[in-house]
């Protein structure tokens, strides 16, 4: 699941065509919301699915699921319901893994 640093820009665009996109609504239960470490785990996992495009929506805000910076900008707080959208290769498997990260109750009592 770890991915070498640079150059993942290409396949990271908007989901192609809409066909085959998997959408999931997930409630954030981590007491600190989608904080740095959870977001980081999410982005790293998402990057592991090189052929999939991942987006997360909080209300009308959209984040590229492979960018920690974007995810933090969602300000997804405890109790927020976010929508996960995955398309491309391995979309169902990626959606399962990523939804599990978002829904995990956490338990780490520190942010970064």
């Amino acid at each position, binding site marked *: 699941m770890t991915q070498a*640093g*640079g*150059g*993942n*820009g290409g396949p*990271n665009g908007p989901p192609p065509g809409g066909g085959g996109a998997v959408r999931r609504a997930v409630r954030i239960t981590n007491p*600190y*919301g989608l*904080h*740095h*470490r959870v*977001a*980081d785990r999410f*982005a*790293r996992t998402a990057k592991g699915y090189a052929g999939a495009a991942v987006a997360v929506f909080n209300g009308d*805000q959209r984040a*590229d699921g492979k*960018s*920690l*910076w*974007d995810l*933090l*900008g969602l*300000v997804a*707080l*405890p109790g927020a319901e976010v929508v996960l959208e995955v398309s491309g290769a391995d979309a169902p498997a990626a959606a399962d893994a990523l939804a599990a990260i978002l829904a995990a109750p956490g*338990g*780490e*009592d*520190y*942010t*970064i």
Partner: protein
Amino acid sequence: MEKRRGIPVSPGVAIGPALVLDTEGVRIPHQTVPPDRVEGEVGRLRVALDEAAAAARASRQNLSTRLGAAFGNIFGAQESLFEDPAFRAKIEEQLRANSFSAEYAVSRSIRDFIKRLETTAQKFGPDAVADARRRAGDLYDVERQVLYALLGYPSGSVAPAGGERVVILANDLMPSDTADFSPRTVWAFATESGGPTSHTAILANALEIPAVVGVGRFLTDVSGGDQVIVDGDRGLLILDPDPGTVAEYEERRVALLNRADRFHALRDKPSVTHDGTPIRLLGNIELAHEAAHCAEWGAEGVGLYRSEFLYLNKAADPTEEEHYEAYKSVVETIGPDKPVVIRTLDLGADKVFSLSALLTTEKNPFLGLRSVRLCLRKLDLFRTQLRAILRAAVAGDVRVMFPMISTVDELRKCKTLLNEVKDDLEDAGVPYKRDVRVGTMIEVPSAALMADVLAREVDFFSVGTNDLVQYTLAADRNNENVADLYNPADPAVLRLIDGVVRAGRDRGVEVNVCGEMSGEPLYTTLLVGLGLRQLSATPRKLPEVKRVIRHLTVEEAERVAAQVRRLDTARQATNYLRDHLRRILPEAVD
């Protein structure tokens, strides 16, 4: 001019140039560069981000090896951010669009992002804002790491170099940061986060530096060198003050200095009530050199020497000699006949040092392995400290006190260990004091309720109201959402204190109160009325407490305590006490 309200934690006022820590402690040399140097700046930026990522990776690996992956991953998120293409693209875009320097582009991008986080959070209410602020702290750290990579790492302490006295502004300060401050270099400080009884606040008080904490976001609105005012009496931070305000504060500063002189005049007057009952006033200290403050403010000894600072800022645990030297110097300053109560290691979740990362693995550190519980698990650490205390006791009236005792078993274990240590010293022929007086803190409700049983085991009690209040009301004193529950005058707390005083009286055990409560003139009458004859507080607070004592009769204090005991709520009790104090000493209120 802009006034921001925070929590006043250390009195006094100060006017001076701001030193903004965390970020502008690193000075940004140029905002913009000539257009032909833009690509060069992009290059510098990329190298710096790579370097910051490498440093975070090294920290992650180092911590993972020492403490496990869960801790290492704390830096994993930083590492990811430095490598994040969206993050990098954002900064480069800013840099190119405005011909910013690499440093300024980083700073601007992160601060814009923080502003956006906070604006978004405001739509979701106060919890969201608190959450965004916590994240902002993390992001300031990210900014600082990149700026360090661009400009070089600062060495050593955060205390300002050079002769200029400054007002320190920061998101938050680590206790070990403030330990380096001195009134000679720092006029005051103000922080965005932090609560009224955080360790930093206690220390600011001990160092006698005016301070305001919990101001909320302001670092984005101030730059290093700006003139600012910190009003530690009213809890105000004033940015960009107008000339009238500066003049007004200059006047107040001089007036306060005069009042300090007047308090010094009280120093040599005895601490007795109007009808002649002595109330012993002792000082709380954190650092050995503060023992001098005790004498300066008229304390009759040290009622609480918080020994944690020996453990802070250290790459290793302090040695027995380090303990001994510190204790000995306090005894020498105080004199051989005056008590020096040394509290053994009382590390809590809010008291940061090298072990703190270990402690936060617990889901609920305030109810976890801390303080004496930690000592009873790390016996070597505990023994080292006890040996030093027993040895230092030869020179004066040193007493040992165990913190956070919650059962009589724990207290007995501590005493057993103390006796073992005495035997070791005896066998080794090392000079020590065998009949050192032993006491326990009463700061857990279970201990207060069992005070009659604990009284059989010790020579004295010291009621630690900070923790007792928070454990009794199950309210974290640093959590602004529940801080209103935290009130020393809450009837539940007063019943516990009352029970402890009675248990002590029945068993001939001395009772002292050493929390913040005992330094507040508002509670002095009540405490005397409840039967306390000894109070321990930050030395600087003592003159005002003494002034109340000298205006009181015991009979009147008892009447006040009886009246307060009949009240149902903390608010009623506080109002009643305030009205009473206003009647007997109007100038002590406000």
